[in-house]
């Protein structure tokens, strides 16, 4: 690629154009993808710590048999909030954080396609998190498990506000997730730098793109099921009420039509992060780029065809379960492709054992365990034994910790220097990895055994003599070791902000565009938007590949906030896109949504109407053109 430097006058001008306004207004009105990305990361990490705290309390209770420190209603709220927090408020948003921060830098753009939608997505995520956690403050947190099976979660059996918080909170969060996903899809297809055709994008783009497309199709299933639940609870409807023509399994179908794709939604971008980190440390381009990209898409498609494997014990016809059993086995093939691609990359490369690579190695092993213990539940009869036992708890933790948390922590060590400008400590990083890897396996591996010993999930205590004492003791020890690892990471992070060595542009000798700019990057990302000629722009010279096709010299876009709009597949420049200025609409809309959802929660209909009206009025303001298009000529002065 051609890294063109711009004259200082030009960068000064760009800074003036792109810098977020100072003060409180700037904090609330910022639409900078880097700011939003960092906010996503910090907020999601806070939820990770909250979820971890909940886990720590639960593990204390389960360390020994017949412990009654926690009342059952407290324990039930804890495990539900732990699941909801980790799955919805951490695993997905943390990846949105990375994607938000990295995408424009990786594709050579100045922001996401819809910067204000991006801000709305963040604010709505934050508000829905606050909404969900306000239930904890009043002691009525959701207590029906993260998949909230009806009819236990219906008004008749759960009269408090607990499950209303759940149903409304999920709908609220789905708004954030959906608009965020739409933003990623459009950014992928419209904002890539000239020359970055679809076969040249970093794998994280494929991962987040696949996940985002899945969200577009899957999130409405969650919204629909939670709306129906709310209607049942609040208005006495009968969707899930067997006595009045409803059916409890309708919930399970709708929920898992969403829920199984969701598993891939929280791992595909993480797999993408890994696929982009591994080549840097293997000192070799990713083996089988096309295979890995296609495996991501294949997983996304197959992910919609396996939901029934959560329901093998519900008495469905044998033929139906057999079909879904086969589909559930098939979906491991794309994962196998990715794993072998990473191993081949490492095998034929010259690996440099830095902390991020340690996390990647750990991730591959944990991914394999999380895949294998998942496919062990695909054979229907064996699933009858394993489902709803602690084996499933082991499985979901290997999936989420192995395929989400490990890539994320590796990514922290890899990309935080880009964000903060300071390196984290290699020495502490190795300790963090060791503690998390050993602690994680110590915590989660014995859960397989507990399940095989017949321990059901979601019990708040267990009797002595059932043979479950030892495994639970080990699990608790492992959980605390893991927690120490996370704590040490926090120490390392805060230490690095002051004392970490300066990162420079490209501390790891990475190959992708984000490493071509300063750490942290300037507000406008690139003074001169890059033109891309290969998959590894910063390695081109050393790969000895003749640049494929020359790039046209590119102008400095400094006539207001601008970036290139390019064609969907080939990335030919098509237009100059005007990007919005700082805006208060996003935060105001999400506040109006918060009012709406509290109105719905408390049956304060006037409040709900205020919220809805607020959203509508604000949207009109949002979409009212600030540059009146009658000044058509002024808008496109350069048009022929």
């Amino acid at each position, binding site marked *: 690629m051609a890294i063109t430097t711009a004259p200082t006058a030009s960068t000064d001008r760009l800074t003036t154009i792109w810098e977020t306004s100072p003060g409180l207004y700037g904090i609330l009105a910022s639409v900078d993808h880097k700011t939003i990305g960092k906010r996503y990361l910090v907020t999601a990490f806070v939820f990770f710590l909250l979820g971890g705290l909940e886990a720590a309390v639960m593990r204390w209770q389960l360390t020994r048999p017949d412990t009654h420190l926690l009342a059952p209603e407290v324990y039930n709220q804890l495990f539900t909030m732990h699941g909801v927090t980790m799955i919805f408020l951490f695993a997905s948003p943390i990846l949105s954080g990375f994607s938000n921060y990295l995408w424009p830098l990786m594709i050579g753009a100045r922001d996401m396609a819809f910067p204000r939608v991006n801000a709305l997505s963040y604010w709505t995520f934050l508000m829905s998190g606050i909404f969900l956690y306000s239930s904890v403050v009043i002691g009525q947190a959701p207590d029906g498990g993260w998949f909230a099976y009806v009819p236990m979660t219906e008004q008749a059996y759960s009269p408090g506000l607990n499950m209303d918080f759940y149903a409304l909170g999920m709908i609220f969060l789905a708004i954030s997730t959906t608009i965020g996903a739409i933003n990623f899809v459009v950014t992928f297809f419209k904002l890539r730098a000239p020359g970055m055709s679809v076969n040249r994008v970093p794998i994280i783009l494929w991962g987040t793109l696949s996940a985002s497309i899945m969200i577009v199709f899957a999130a409405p299933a969650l919204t629909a099921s939670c709306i129906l639940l709310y209607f049942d609870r609040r208005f006495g409807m009968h969707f899930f009420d067997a006595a009045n023509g409803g059916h409890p399994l309708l919930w399970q179908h709708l929920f898992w039509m969403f829920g199984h794709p969701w598993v891939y939604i929280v791992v595909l971008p993480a797999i993408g992060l890994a696929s982009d980190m591994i080549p840097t440390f293997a000192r070799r381009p990713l083996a089988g780029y096309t295979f890995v990209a296609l495996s991501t898409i294949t997983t996304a498609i197959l992910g919609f065809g396996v939901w029934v494997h959560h329901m093998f014990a519900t008495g469905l016809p044998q033929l139906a379960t057999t079909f879904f059993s086969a589909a559930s086995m098939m979906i491991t093939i794309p994962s196998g492709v990715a794993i072998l691609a990473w191993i081949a990359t490492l095998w034929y490369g010259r690996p440099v054992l830095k902390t991020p690579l340690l996390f990647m190695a750990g991730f591959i092993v944990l991914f394999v365990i999380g895949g294998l213990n998942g496919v062990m539940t695909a054979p229907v009869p064996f699933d009858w034994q394993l489902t709803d036992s602690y084996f499933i708890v082991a499985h979901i933790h290997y999936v989420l910790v192995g395929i989400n948390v490990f890539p994320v922590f590796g990514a922290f060590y890899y990309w935080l220097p880009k964000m903060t400008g300071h390196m984290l400590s290699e020495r502490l990083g190795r300790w963090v990895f060791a503690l998390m890897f050993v602690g994680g396996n110590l915590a989660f591996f014995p859960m397989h055994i507990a399940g095989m010993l017949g321990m059901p999930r979601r019990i708040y205590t267990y009797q002595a003599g059932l043979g479950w004492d030892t495994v639970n003791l080990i699990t608790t020890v492992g959980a605390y070791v893991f927690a120490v690892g996370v704590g040490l990471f926090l120490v390392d992070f805060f230490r690095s902000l002051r004392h970490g060595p300066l990162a420079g542009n490209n501390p790891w000798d990475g190959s992708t565009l984000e490493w071509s700019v300063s750490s942290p990057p300037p507000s406008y990302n690139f003074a001169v938007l890059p033109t891309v000629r290969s998959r590894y722009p910063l390695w081109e010279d050393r790969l*000895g590949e003749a640049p494929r096709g020359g790039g046209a010299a590119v102008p400095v876009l400094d006539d207001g906030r601008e970036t290139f709009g390019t064609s969907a597949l080939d990335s030919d420049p098509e237009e100059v896109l005007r990007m919005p200025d700082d805006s208060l609409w996003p935060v105001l809309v999400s506040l109006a949504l918060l009012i709406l959802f509290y109105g719905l929660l408390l049956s304060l209909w006037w409040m709900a109407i205020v919220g809805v009206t607020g959203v509508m009025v604000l949207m009109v303001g949002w979409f009212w053109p600030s540059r009146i298009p009658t000044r058509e000529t002024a808008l496109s002065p350069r048009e022929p």
Partner: protein
Amino acid sequence: MSTDVRNPYYDGYVGVAQIRSFQIRPTKYVSAIYIPIAPQHVGRAASVGALLLPLIAAACAGAPAIFGTHGLAADRIALLGWVCTIISCVVLGIITILVVVALVRRRPARASSADDRIEHSGHAIRWIVIGGIIVPGVTLVVTFLVTLVIQAEVANPPQRPVATIEVTGHRWWWEVKYLGVGPSGSVVTANEIHVPVGQPVRFELVSADVIHSFWVPQLAGKTDVIPGLRNTMWMQADQPGVYWGECAEYCGLQHTHMNFVVVAESPAAFQSWMAQQRQPAARPIDAADADGLDVFRRSGCGTCHAIQGTQAQGRIGPDLTHVASRSRIGAGTLPNTPGNLAGWIANAQALKPGSGMPTMTLSARDLRTLLAYLETLK
């Protein structure tokens, strides 16, 4: 309660002749694990297994383990389970070795340290196609075929079931009804299911409220109990014993304490148990017992509980006609001893918070006579 490893559903149990003779079956766990993963066969997987063995051995004593099976269906599923587990251990072993070797193996030195060439080296695509597609594909097809065979095997019992038992899941206990028995057409009990050894029995599973899941790990896989549906399953115990059963689907506050036992006994013993259960409750034989029945009546116990042969016909809680013949109270919460029963009546909410059993305020004398009466209900 003492903390040493004992069978919880046998522990502290006194006074019921029918069950005293049972021994808890030792699980086949330890012997089973040695056979399939002998070191010479699976190398690394075995060493993983060997590391886990002491853990498993120590932990499994008395556990209702899915590999410590004593029933036809569970045996076949355990075989499938071993196939899956061994394949998984082998795959995990291979991948772990590959990752470690890939990280540490020696590379040919480069001519100069300044040489930072980056190359598309090696036969990477071959790895992906063979290791990522062909090998897993073949393994999965084989696993799937084994699955189909075993699924067909356990779909139906080998012979006509000798009894049909309707099990109703309540929050948080199990109502057990033997269908087609006795003059009234059924025999009702709770949280304890007697079955004849070596003969399949059929279960019809219904729910009185929310979704539960019926699971006896050592005898069969679980089947969900869903309102509006009547799911069926079968099981056959092959050795006499007392097997731990659980609700496996989270069903609310006391999901934890929604257990039961399956008592497998010789067909003759089963028949005599059935004959006894068909009888109405023992008539009070002396004034003290009659007093106890009177306390039962005055305290309103009959609103929820039934005692056949008396006016108490409540259907909300467990049928108490033969309560003294059962081994546990509170759906597995406590052994059925007079002391525990007294504690349960006086303060069930402390023992199982949220359970349907209210705290009964009885005078010490009333409680004693009530207990004495209940102890006669064998």
